[in-house]
């Protein structure tokens, strides 16, 4: 049995956990001094050694990313925190910033020190007002306490942090689109190369990391990289926040070593809703292909989920039980991608427009079985043909749902509509039945 390992979530229950006082009371900002006592390169080395991989979805080794920053480049270096958290199902960064924004701020300072950035930006999606208040406040407090500004803790290191609110665009989670947004432009992804490490914000060397990645840094510095890598699996080290939502008894945040299984997590969450069974789930947000009950024992690490034909993504475990129509779920996600397609490239812009039409017809029981092959062919023409990974994500629910639930699609056609009762899926459905 894998046990939970609260690190990032450890102080979330503390009284006024978001305040500097509360954070400092449990040793906050002490990792900072430890980092300042190290050479910046040693900090990078330590993060490399820890095996920390990006928590924003792709799992790129964080220390390696920092090492790509060309230190001989005379331009200023920037750290940008990706706090756009908009991938459907993903809900870990937002509670982290709400409960303990100082963990992030301390991580920002250490990370900036490592890459020698004197300016950092926290790009928070705009639709989370109170979270933005908390981060704004934390930054204010950190300045007042001398954790930000000039000559921080007497180290000679200067850092300014700007909290930047987005304005409603999922695509701005994609790092180059985020940079465009941060530069005051339409959030449309940029050509790569050049990679942000070489020419990112203002064409200067830039590191972009997810909130959870950056927030993990203080603990790595405080406790040592061995500590971090003692958790997790061979290639997926450390802990991560697993977000369970949907048809489990107690949805919520579960911080555990990578490699824990869904079976274990569901058990911790009190099981699937009373009287129902797991039908399908996303391992890491809607952009990661659906899995089913047959995958309950897949280790939730980058390799394990990959081997199962999906991706670990953001550990956004959306759980759907047998009351849920997979066609409805897939259509809704597809509508999301259509709505969020930035419009830059043809296959995503036009493809999602078309996919929605074919799927809505199918959901209404219109069309024919050949439409499933049409859908798969459209997906084939989108996947890997688009400008950025949003479109790859867009086809994930479709291809995976057809793979596992082809019969259910056909049942819509033969039955002339959806065989499911949507009222049975709701959070209050059980209560109504008993009432």
């Amino acid at each position, binding site marked *: 049995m894998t046990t939970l390992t609260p690190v990032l979530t450890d102080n979330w229950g503390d009284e006024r956990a978001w305040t500097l006082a509360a954070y400092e009371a449990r040793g906050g900002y002490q990792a900072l001094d430890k980092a300042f006592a190290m050479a910046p390169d040693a900090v990078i080395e330590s993060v490399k050694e820890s095996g920390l991989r990006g928590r924003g979805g792709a799992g790129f080794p964080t220390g390696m990313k920092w090492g790509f920053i060309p230190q001989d480049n005379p331009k200023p270096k920037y750290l940008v925190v990706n706090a756009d958290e908009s991938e459907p199902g993903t809900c870990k960064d937002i509670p982290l910033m709400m409960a303990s924004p100082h963990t992030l701020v301390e991580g920002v300072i250490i990370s900036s020190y490592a890459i020698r950035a004197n300016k950092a930006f926290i790009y928070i999606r705009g639709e989370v007002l109170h979270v933005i208040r908390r981060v704004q406040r934390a930054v204010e407090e950190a300045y007042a306490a001398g954790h930000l500004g000039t000559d921080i803790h007497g180290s000679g290191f200067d850092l300014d942090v700007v909290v930047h609110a987005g304005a409603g*665009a999922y695509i701005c989670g994609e790092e180059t689109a985020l940079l465009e947004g941060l530069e005051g432009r*339409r959030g*449309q992804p940029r*050509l790569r190369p050049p990679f942000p490490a070489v020419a990112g914000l203002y064409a200067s060397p830039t590191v972009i990391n997810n909130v959870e990645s950056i927030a993990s840094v203080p603990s790595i510095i405080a406790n040592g990289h061995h500590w971090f890598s003692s958790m997790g699996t061979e290639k997926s080290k450390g802990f991560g926040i697993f977000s369970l939502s949907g048809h489990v008894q107690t949805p919520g945040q579960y911080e555990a070593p990578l490699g824990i299984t869904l079976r274990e997590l569901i058990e911790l969450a009190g099981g699937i809703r009373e009287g129902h069974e797991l039908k399908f789930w996303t391992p890491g947000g809607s952009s990661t292909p659906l899995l089913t009950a047959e995958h309950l024992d897949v280790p939730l690490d980058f390799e394990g989920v990959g081997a199962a034909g999906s991706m670990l993504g953001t550990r956004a475990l959306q759980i759907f039980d047998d009351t849920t129509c997979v066609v409805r779920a897939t259509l809704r996600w597809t509508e999301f991608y*259509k*709505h*969020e*397609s*930035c*419009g*830059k*490239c*043809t*296959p995503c*812009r*036009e*493809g*999602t*427009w*078309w996919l929605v*039409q*074919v799927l809505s*017809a199918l959901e209404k029981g219109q*069309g024919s079985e050949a*439409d499933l092959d*049409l859908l798969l062919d*459209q997906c*084939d*023409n*989108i*996947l*890997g*043909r*688009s*400008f950025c990974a949003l479109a790859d994500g867009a086809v994930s629910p479709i291809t995976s749902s057809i793979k596992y639930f082809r019969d259910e699609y056909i049942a819509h056609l033969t039955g002339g509509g959806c065989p499911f009762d949507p009222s049975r899926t709701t959070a209050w459905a059980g209560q109504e039945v008993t009432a």
Partner: protein
Amino acid sequence: MTTTPEKATDLVSLTIDGIQVSVPKDTLVIRAAEQVGVQIPRFCDHPLLAPVGACRQCLVDVPDAGNGRGFPKPQASCTLPVAEGMVVNTQATSPVADKAQQGIMEFLLINHPLDCPVCDKGGECPLQNQAMTNGRGDSRFSAGGGVKRTFPKPISISPQVLLDRERCIVCQRCTRFAAEIPGDPFIALVERGAQQQIGIAEDAPFLSYFSGNVIQICPVGALTSAEYRFRSRPFDLVSTPGVGEHDSCGAAIRIDHRRGKVMRRLSGEDPEVNEEWITDKDRFAFHYATQADRLTYPQVRDRVEDGGDGSLRPASWPEAFAVAARGLAAAGGVGVLTGGRLTAEDAYAYSKFARVSLGTNDIDFRSRPLSAEEASFLAAEVALRSPGNGGVSYADLETASSVVLAGLEPEDEAGTIFLRLRKAVRARGTRVVAVAPYATRGLSKLSAQVVRTAPGAEAAAIAGLDGVDAGSVILVGERLATVPGALSAAAALARRTGARLAWVPRRAGDRGAVEAGCLPNLLPGGRPVADAQARVDAGTTWGVDHLPDAAGRDADEIVAALVSGELGGLVIGGVDPDDTADPAATRAAIEAASFVVALELRETDVTRAADVVFPVAPVVDKAGTFVTWEGRPRPFEAVFASPGSLPDVRVLAGIAEELDRPLGFRTILEARAEMQEMGPWDGERAGHTAVDAVPAGGDGFALATWKLLVDNGSMQHGDKAYLATGRVAVARLSPAAYDAHGPIVTLTGDRGSVTLPAEPADLDDDVVWVPANSFGNGVLAGLASPGSRVTIAKGDPA
């Protein structure tokens, strides 16, 4: 885009569809494929715009990226640079690439309207062509009952350009053009996803001098011009290459015509000159040649003194030649004013006509303010220079360490130079320094460092420039002629620093006229009139033993001599008196002349006053050569064979023959052959007589002015939509002067008054700028001479 390798070491070898090819490093795969004859389909890609990889039509399979590993997914060949050992399989050999491309094509078509039969682009549409050669016959989208995205029909994004959003495939060529090439980002992507479209801000139309280029590069029929819309179909059109006749840039154009009528003009491709862009003036201003006042037959005046009623009447060509010859022979001293619009061949004919047929050096092409200093400067510093021969070229602008602009506003006066400079500034950060009255929008788009200079103070400003070195280029505009010492200062600066110097006139024929010797001090081929050897040399080609040796009169002196009666006759072609230094004097001169022969395209004040009027051919009706400001000849052929429409060459030959002093040629080709035979002067060049600067000053406001690109010029008549894109005439004042006199001001000079809206700009407190030909009869006729002083009063806002 040059793909010629400079050094073998820069080559990269790769295999495309099994064929080995070596291309310069950094070449994009899409262009490398062209080298092996494979055309990868594309929409967003444009060789002169930064790559975006948006349309995804150009996907290819790359089984080996050059490192032994392939790309797992098809790659956009328009954003992928070649790598040594790379293996690329295009749609020609790879089923993966082929399917990927077919898939994209299908996506592009789902929302595309099926209106090709009524679309302007139909027949020349990359999307249509691609769909026909490569697309699926049937539409799976409509077969499945797909619902297309619709937009209300076309919207105007400027008075000239319309946008049909349903046709748009949002390739961003237009927006990238606008932002990158002219720097006019007034169109932008708006909305998102499937609703994404091209748009403008409310009340802020896409007003760019180069807007027409977006119509041409749009890969579908989404952008059309109000002027050409629905007028014809590409397959009904015949295309003939031409050269822009509106400025001295020599831009290549393509003239599309049908049954003797020009339907539209497009940019041609001339990598040395305009690359693939032209100004809206070169694109849209061609209706001047078909206006109702076009002259179509010769006319002679039944002179009262000969018993006639004093009116002009139609005449046959032979009669007109004879009457003209008789009148000129009897006039007792004839001056020749040729205007700046001539082809090199026509200019040569005038030059020879003056010297051989009339026996005079009283000839001048400068139908605008001028000076003797300028004539000397042209002979010494301009004539005979050309790219590769001491002259500055467009390419030199791109490589120069810095470029100095003096008396030249490139965006208004030389659009192709403006675009080349922007390219240099964007690609290499070239420093542009402008001696100008204020930081214009055009100069700010060049990130120019403005050396703010009041009109009249240019000579001192040029002399005081620093940071000019041997890698610099100095471009002087014709306007400097009016500032004593300015051209001399520029020449001195070039000599002192080793910088190269070029003169940029405004009109297409100006530079050719210098080479042809339409100046009082120059014979053709840069031969100084004052040099006996040079005269003998020219005379030999012309088969005459004597050429006039007295220095001729320049245009101002010709005008004065006509008024005073020292000259009696005038041969005048393509001159608008209101363009000249003193319009009233020019009109008086025409009035005073005892005999006037006019060669003109359209009826004007000059033809109405002339004794013999010859219609001459517009450029579409004749072959010819324009010489660019660089000194680069750009020959062109006639678009139409119109036997009744004769070039100036032929008219002058006819008169000369009646004068018994024939030119020895009658056609453009013959004239061209003789010009070649005479060749350039290889003797000593005329030296430049430097002129000292004169301190500027005085009461009131010094008048700064030049012509906007789009203005009231007669060669821009006839296209309402085009004219509506012009900038509103305003007077620009310093903020202090604006506060004192704005927002509406009345300017009064020695020639009249004008009331205009005012705008503040970073001018000196005693300088005012107005556009030269955007109101009334223009500044010269109706206000004052450039550089002179005017007074300003608060205008009546009525």
